[in-house]
Each structure stands twice: as structure tokens, then as C-alpha cells.
């Protein structure tokens, strides 16, 4: 994992900049089945994940569609986008296993100082799935 050492000038990987400049999943979803919104205690940023969920032939619930809205830095926006790509098409069970490390790996690394921004992604997805389960009950 590429992580910038403490005190070094922060620099983002190419993958981070690519996703930040052209996020594929950055939009508000109409009629989502669930929303997960979390705030980042470290710097005060906010991330919102929208989910559309459907059952496949086997009867498993899968994430049919996913999108995000993020108020945050370059790392937070690119983390949101990477998370959406990781989660799309997965079953809910699989999606719950996505961690910050998966996100950081997909982004080809994050500066040390920005690691916490990827945590936001993991939490937002989990919250959205929890909200979905609650709604279903």
C-alpha cells in the first residue's frame, strides 16, 4: 500500500486524481431503496450513499445501483467513487465485507493524513445497508 510518511508533502495517486476529476457515481439518486449518511468527526465532512436493491434469480439481494454525494476533500470524493464501484453488483452480504483497505487499494494508496477519508466510505455503505434492512422489517 502506498502511504505517504508523516511530514511529507501530501500527494495523490493517479487513480485518486482520475476518480476525483471524473467520478462515475457522483449523483443524487431518484427513488432509492435506502440512503446512508455519515459525518466525519475528524474534519467535519459528510458522505451520502444511495442504494437500489433487487433480488437475483437465486433470491439473494444485490446492489443493483449505487451513487454518492460527498462534501469533502479529493480523497473523500475519490473514496466514495471507488466504494461505489466495489459495491455495485455485489450481494448485500458481500458488500458488508468491503473495508477501508479495499477502498485504499482500489485507489492505489492514500496519503497517511487522508486515510480517515476512506473510513467514511466504509461507514456510509454499512449505514445505507442497515437502513435498508430496518425499512424492510
Amino acid at each position, binding site marked *: 500500500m502506498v502511504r505517504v510518511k508523516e511530514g511529507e508533502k501530501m500527494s495523490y495517486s493517479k487513480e485518486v486524481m482520475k476518480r476525483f476529476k471524473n467520478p462515475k457515481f457522483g449523483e443524487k439518486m431518484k427513488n432509492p431503496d435506502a440512503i446512508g*449518511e455519515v459525518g466525519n468527526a475528524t*474534519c467535519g*465532512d459528510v458522505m451520502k450513499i444511495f442504494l437500489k436493491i433487487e433480488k437475483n434469480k437465486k433470491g439473494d439481494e444485490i446492489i443493483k445501483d449505487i451513487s454518492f*454525494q*460527498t*462534501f469533502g476533500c*479529493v480523497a473523500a*470524493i475519490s473514496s466514495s467513487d471507488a466504494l461505489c464501484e466495489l459495491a455495485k453488483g455485489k450481494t448485500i452480504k458481500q458488500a458488508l465485507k468491503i473495508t477501508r483497505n479495499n477502498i485504499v487499494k482500489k485507489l492505489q494508496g492514500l496519503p497517511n493524513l487522508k486515510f*480517515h477519508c476512506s473510513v467514511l466510505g466504509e461507514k456510509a455503505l454499512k449505514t445505507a445497508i442497515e437502513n435498508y434492512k430496518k425499512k424492510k422489517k
Partner: protein
Amino acid sequence: MKVYLDNGATTQVAKEVAEVIDNMLTKNFGNPSSLHQFGEEANEEIVKARETIAKKINANPSEIFFTSGGTESDNLAIKGIAYAYMDKGKHIITTEIEHPAISKTCEHLEKCGFNVTYLSVDKEGFISLEKLENAITDDTILVSIIHANNEIGTIQDMKAISQLCKKKDVLFHTDAVQSFTKVPIDVKAMNIDLLSISGHKIHGPKGIGALFIRKGVKVIPLLHGGDQEGKIRSGTENTPGIVGFAKAVEIISEKDVKQMKELRDRLIDGIQKSVVDAKLNGPKGDKRLANNVNISFKYIEGESMLYHLDGKGVAVSTGSACSSQSLSPSPVLISIGLKPEDAHGSIRFTLSRYTTKEEIDYTIDSVKEIVENLRKISPLKK
């Protein structure tokens, strides 16, 4: 298009300045303390440079002490006065909106047994004279208040502050790193005792600055050694820096300042006309630094805005928590009462004498497009 709007951080060295620096590096390279011709010729240039800088602020050349920059000048002023006058008192007054070169120096002195009062400021960044007067006690030895703020461009009323200090018989220092050459300074008329300036904010080189110390004011040096600079600052003089610094002072004109003000207002008006919920931080008009624009864009975060602008070739800075090492928003913006989320979306644009109208218009267009895109993916924008 490449547009450099981070002149508050540093500026490009003027061609004229680079030429005189080159001459001092390769031809007139002597040590000014040496007795031979090489030394004498280098010394002559320093004498002239000191005169140029003294004249710009209406000081005597013997009151100008060259240092390694704004940071050293600030340290020398605060620590130098604290140690020289500690028998008289141990209280220092400053503000909540100082550059770290002042605030961290004061924090250090607090650990050494001094007491420091940090004056709060109003919505536009101005201190209150009444609060200042109330803060001065018999124990107060120094008041240090930044002339023009580096983030929001607020220009304090030097005359009113110094009159108060004089009446109360305390020394007055100001950090004029951002205002020097952009706001007229007259240390006699303004009754200033110490004043810090720096080369690289005015198209001079980095690593050179000066401290004006009024005749009769005592300062304990930070550096001891060969007794250069009237024993106040030892170390072989940075002759290329000193001569380059003076050249930079020489070439800046009133016309440059006027042009910066016009373009500054063009940028403010242009952004506010094309983008909703874009609030100017700091005052308007003549109480604002000629080259400073600081705007909070609601619902978006500054670091992401900065990188999008960078992608379009426009270089700026931000007070966002996300971009700071400490992950907390700019203390200056919090001091003027901004909510953390608005400090988050703050962008500072700082112009120079080389900034053009085309660059400003390009910046306005870029800002408009980027803000629209970022707001589309913002959960805060309803």
C-alpha cells in the same frame, strides 16, 4: 491557461531583481566586512539597499536590520523585546489572527513564563481599540498586531493603535509582510516601534527580510556571532538577497497597486454575479489589501475546489480543514465567526502586479463551472 493567484504564499522574482541578484552572486560577491575592494564594493550595495528600504517606510537606514525573512523578523521582534524588557513586565498583547510566525512565538514565550493576551476580532477581522485599551496593564511591554492579514486582507488602523500604545507607554510591533509596498507605511507618522517585512511576497527572493527597530528600542539578538547588522543579527550578510529585496521595492509603483485593486474588485464582483451563495470574507474597499480575495463557497469543500482549479491551471489556496495538517479549519476564519463548514469552503485568491484582466476573467469562468459541478455531488446542497 496558467494563472498564478497564490501571491500571498510567494511571488515570482521580477526580471530586474533576478539581474541584480545574478550580479551579486557572480561578480560583486565579496564579504561586506572585508577591507579590500571586493568587500568595499559589496558593502556599497548593502548601504544603498538599506537606504532604499528605509525610505519606503520613512525610517533612518540605521533602523533597518536585515534578516532571513518575515519569520525571523517576527521572532526577533517578539523574543528580542520580551527578553530585553522582561524586568519591566512580562505581558504581551497580540491578536487571534496573526501569522504563525507571531502566534507560535507567543505560545513559546507563554511556556517561558510570559503572559499573552490574544485579542479577538470582529466579523471583518478588525480589532477593537477599546478591548486593546482594556487589555493593557502595568505589566504590558509589547503590543503586536498584524498590519494586513494574510488570509482575509483586513488592514488595521495603525495610527489609532500606535497612539494608544504611546499613551500607555508600551512598545508597538506590526507584521507588515503582506502590506509592505501595497499599503503606504510611514513609521514616523504611524508611530511604529518595530515592523517586519519580507522579500518574497513582493517579487524579491526568498530567505530575505528585514526588521525596522526604532532608534532607542532595545532588542536582544537571536543570533550571536560576528556582530553584523549593528550586533543585532550576526551572520555574513545575504548580499544577493538584500540587493534583490531593495530592487523589488524600487520597481513596485502606485500604478501596480491601483491595478491590483481594480482586478481584485473585478474578481469579487465577477464571482458574486455568477455564483450564488459565495460570501466574501474580510472587508471591502480601501480597508482590504489590494491583492487579496477570500470567498466561502457554500456546500463545497476547499481542497477539492483547489485541485479542480489546479486542473484548469489556476493556483489558489484554501482555509479548509481537509487541507491542513491538523485537520482543523483556519483559525483566522473561525475568529471572524465563520461556521466550520463555511471555513471549509473558503478559497483565497491573491493577485500580483503581473495579474491580467484575461486571467481574472478566465478564473471567474473556471470557478463558476467547478462550483456547479461540485455542488451537484454535495449532500449539503438541497
